[in-house]
């Protein structure tokens, strides 16, 4: 197995992020996948981005400019 390294961007584990834990992932060049030392997540960049988008869904007002207070 290859040595885990930092990826081109320093992605956090999207599964740990769902429970609000910022956990840096390591990248396996041979398999082109990220993996988490904590929760056993594995996935390529596309999968990480898909789950990150899902994480943002809870912020229903993330695109709303609110000025009425």
């Amino acid at each position: 197995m290859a040595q885990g390294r930092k990826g081109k961007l320093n992605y956090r584990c999207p599964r740990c992020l769902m429970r609000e834990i910022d956990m840096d992932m390591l990248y396996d060049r041979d398999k082109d996948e990220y993996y988490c030392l904590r929760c056993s997540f594995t996935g390529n960049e596309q999968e990480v981005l898909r789950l990150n988008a899902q994480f943002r869904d809870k912020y229903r007002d993330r695109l709303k400019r609110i000025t009425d207070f």
Partner: protein
Amino acid sequence: MSAFYVTIIHRPEMVPEYIQKGAEEGKQEDLTRSTVIQESLDIFRTQQRVAHENGLRTTIQMTYASLFNQEAVAIAKEHHEKYGDEIGSTFLGLQCQPFRDKFKSKELAIWLFAMEDKRKIVDEVIGKFYEVFGFYPTSTGSYYMDAELVNYIKEKYPMIKAAVATCWEEGPKAYWNANNSWYTLLDGGPWNPWIPSKRNIHCPASDEQDDIGIVAIPHLSRDLLAVFDGPGSYYGTHPQNILRGMVYEDREIPYFKNIVDQYRSMVKYNRGYAYNMMFVGPGWMSKTGRWEAAYDFLLKSYKEGMAYYGQLKKEGKAQDVTMSEFADIYRKDRPYTRPECTLWKDILYGSRRQQFWYADPWMRFCLDMNQGGAMIDLRPYAAKLVRPCGVGTTCNQDASYPFLVQSLYRAGYFTHYAGEGAVKSCKFGHQGEQVDLCACRTLASFSEEDDTRIVTLDPVDIEFAGFTISVQSVFRLTEGTGDIEIVRKILSTTDPEAEVTIDEYITACYGTTEYPEDLTGVKLSVKGASGTEAIEYAYKCRETEISGVTLAEALVPQVDTRLTMRTDTDEASGYFREGFAFSPMYTLGIKKTIKGKGELRTWLKVERAN
């Protein structure tokens, strides 16, 4: 005061704590490496340039390490002359070779050193500052500045009048968020500037004798709802924190402006005064990016944040002030008893949820309108607990101010099948049916009558078998009393003959984390027409109720706090309830039975026990 004040702080860190680790990966540790230092200075220059381009002055907090760097010192002097920026000091960024040579430690948190070392470090940092600039700083800071530390600073360097002193609700949640490796356990302070007590930095001072001598500023202005149930480092006036929380889409971040505007709206609650601070450490603008965000996005978010403050300034809607200037302004028109409060609304999750936050020298508390106005956080500031932190103290890393109620750490209304959670609420009962206001979601409005702040909740309907009542809650907070007056009114009923019992209660404990503490020795008592009943807590599940209640009381020696409830009617009964090991709580309550319409008025108070 009548304005929105903004303080922008930058610090030149030679080896930012966040980029240090990444920069050193696979290399031998070398804190003087020129590439790291140069990158950090570039970031500092960029931050300063962006602020000045937007017409904003800054407070430059010189780190100890930067005092050894001629370029950093020269920039600070130049910007002080040219733009009127304040040159202050900070206890962040201590680590550098001279520090290691002198103190033989890799510790980065000033509040976690032993007291003897804190004194030496203060003298070294401030002394070095004087040596470099020829004057003493008037502002300082860190993520946390304990009272013992600030008392020493004031004794030796009385000219210091402002400090960044806490990060709001950065406690166990921040610790979890950082994979249990970030030791800023600092829950329990105010969210906006305050004058701290000499006894405990979290508590607003009661009077001149108690005044520690600085104006404290929280590190960032945080989202009061999102941060109560989430990581502080996702939601605040720190653009890169917002990127960390991923509160954006297609690189658009309206959330930053929404936070700023909600803070601006606090003029409604605080006699025309509102405040924001923005303080982005250089590590958050690393050229190598920060987590998912590449450098250009980090920079974009910073520029946009600063541009918004600049725009507000140009429109006459904001005043940029340095830390020391702000301290002078804050003290001008501020009685010690004046509370800080706000009816915060959700700007993130689309829920319409509101929470009312309140802090004064007696207490800090939060009411949650999603739970019928239930009190979900209560900190007994009146106790002014002397609670030193750092090596050699019993608290060590745990610098939080204890709570009596924290509904997220200690369950609140919802528990898993057994026992009770910490919350203050009210139950309405009729012939075996009981409804807790925690289950009655509503909204609230804020008003004032002279020195009384009033939170009035929209009425809620409670349905019993066969009839319905409409109930309204009102919280009245009269400045200088330390009392919370709570009125529960039955406004209408569909059966005027039906009797309803109003049961005002508080279920509490104490602690600073989610884990239970030992309640042994807590004294519960209730006084009424027939005398006084009292017990010492021993997890025996005992309960006592007395008619004609005059006072229900819990003495919690572990946090030197006396918690009481009283009422203005002799038609009510009072009770206490001891918990058991699977439900480590104590409950005080006052009950009254009403036929048709009516009300129960009670007062809750926290005081120092001794």
